[in-house]
């Protein structure tokens, strides 16, 4: 009886010890999603000038170490939680980095003036649901502007100008209630422009210039049933 109780006791102690180990192990190896977010971005982008390679050093992981990375602004100085990513004008190549989805507290993304290409993911609203400022201008992005951007309800600034976007601007973008700045100039967009219902926005003809096929502004009447490129 005594020996079997001893075995039971040892078993429980072992169990508790293993639970403790598991909890501690999880804490120390805890998946810090924002670190993975930046690792993924770095891995998915070509960095010809090695600027990211130099600054984004993951080898000495202390609390808040990513906050001193080039282009990274954190919510709080000593906590690895990314507020804004600003990587303009770094010669970066590649596609829209889906890894940003792991920066779950991201509100600002500026990838402007690089050599990025491909299309904006159609599920962009799941990748950056809290985005307030998205600047992809002056790249080589192509394809359609995804309708789901209209689900990014907190967007204040959306700059897609100077790219190769084609097709129609999703009319649903007009429902973005907080949008203040919208710029799609210098693309290959066509069709009618959205009807923006937000107040205090600066959206006007200057938002649409140099898209030969765009209509519904500045006296450019949309011809029924005709989509020009």
């Amino acid at each position: 009886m005594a020996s079997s109780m001893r075995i039971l006791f040892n078993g429980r102690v072992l169990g508790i010890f293993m639970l403790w180990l598991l909890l501690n192990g999880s804490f120390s190896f805890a998946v810090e999603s924002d670190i993975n977010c930046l690792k993924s971005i770095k891995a998915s982008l070509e960095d010809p000038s090695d600027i990211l390679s130099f600054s984004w050093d993951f080898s000495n992981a202390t609390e808040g170490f990513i906050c001193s990375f080039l282009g990274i602004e954190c919510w709080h100085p000593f906590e690895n939680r990314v507020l804004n990513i600003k990587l303009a004008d770094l010669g970066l190549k590649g596609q829209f980095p889906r890894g940003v989805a792991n920066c779950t507290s991201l509100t600002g993304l500026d990838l402007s003036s690089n050599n990025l290409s491909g299309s904006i993911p159609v599920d962009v609203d799941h990748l950056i649901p809290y985005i307030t400022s998205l600047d992809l201008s002056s790249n080589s992005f192509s394809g359609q502007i995804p309708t789901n951007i209209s689900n990014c309800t907190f967007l204040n600034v959306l700059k897609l100008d100077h790219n190769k976007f084609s097709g129609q601007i999703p009319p649903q973008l007009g429902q973005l209630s907080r949008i203040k700045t919208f710029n799609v100039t210098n693309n290959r967009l066509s069709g009618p422009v959205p009807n923006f219902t937000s107040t205090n926005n600066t959206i006007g003809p200057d938002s649409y210039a140099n898209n030969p096929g765009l209509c519904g502004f500045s006296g450019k009447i949309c011809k029924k049933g005709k989509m020009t490129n």
Partner: protein
Amino acid sequence: MDRVISAWLTLLLGFLQLAKLSANVEGDALNALKSNLADPNNVLQSWDPTLVNPCMWLHVTCNSENSVTRVDLGNANLSGTLVTQLGVLSNLQYLELYSNNITGTIPDELGNLNNLVSLDLYLNNLNGGIPDKLGNLAKLRFLRLNNNTLTGTIPVTLTNIGSLQVLDLSNNNLTGDIPVNGSFSLFTPISFANNPRLKALPVTPPPPVSPNLFGPKLTF
């Protein structure tokens, strides 16, 4: 000529006296704070009120006119309460008191700090409401009051602060509506998370992961 010289001398001495006085006012204010705080790590040991101004005190930064611009006491194991005298630090730009064990309320007088750029009181045990007068902080860029036990509503006056860039009121016990106008157009549910009685902002679609700030992350 004599009269002119003595007039200028009086003016000069008067100015010097005034300068000394105002510097003392700031030192007195910080000394009042020190008196209200328990300081087991002795971070305030250098805070000597007999000095002519607090500019040589550790964790205090002054400008070229010996007026306090920064108080850096984050993560210093301090407890106790804040003091209304903090409101006299008219050139204060950074008030960093985060990650301590400070209790009590946020003084209304902090609303007098016209030059304040950063107000970091996060990760403490502050209670009471967010003072409406904080809306007067016209240069405020960072307002981080998260992880306290603040109650009451979010002052609409805060929406008037055009310079506000980072707002974190998460992990408190705030109630009522979340303003969406003015500067608050920039702020998302992240800024207000984990306030169970706050009326949530609509998000379409539901976010992929609800950030559990400062809580353990278990992975398997």
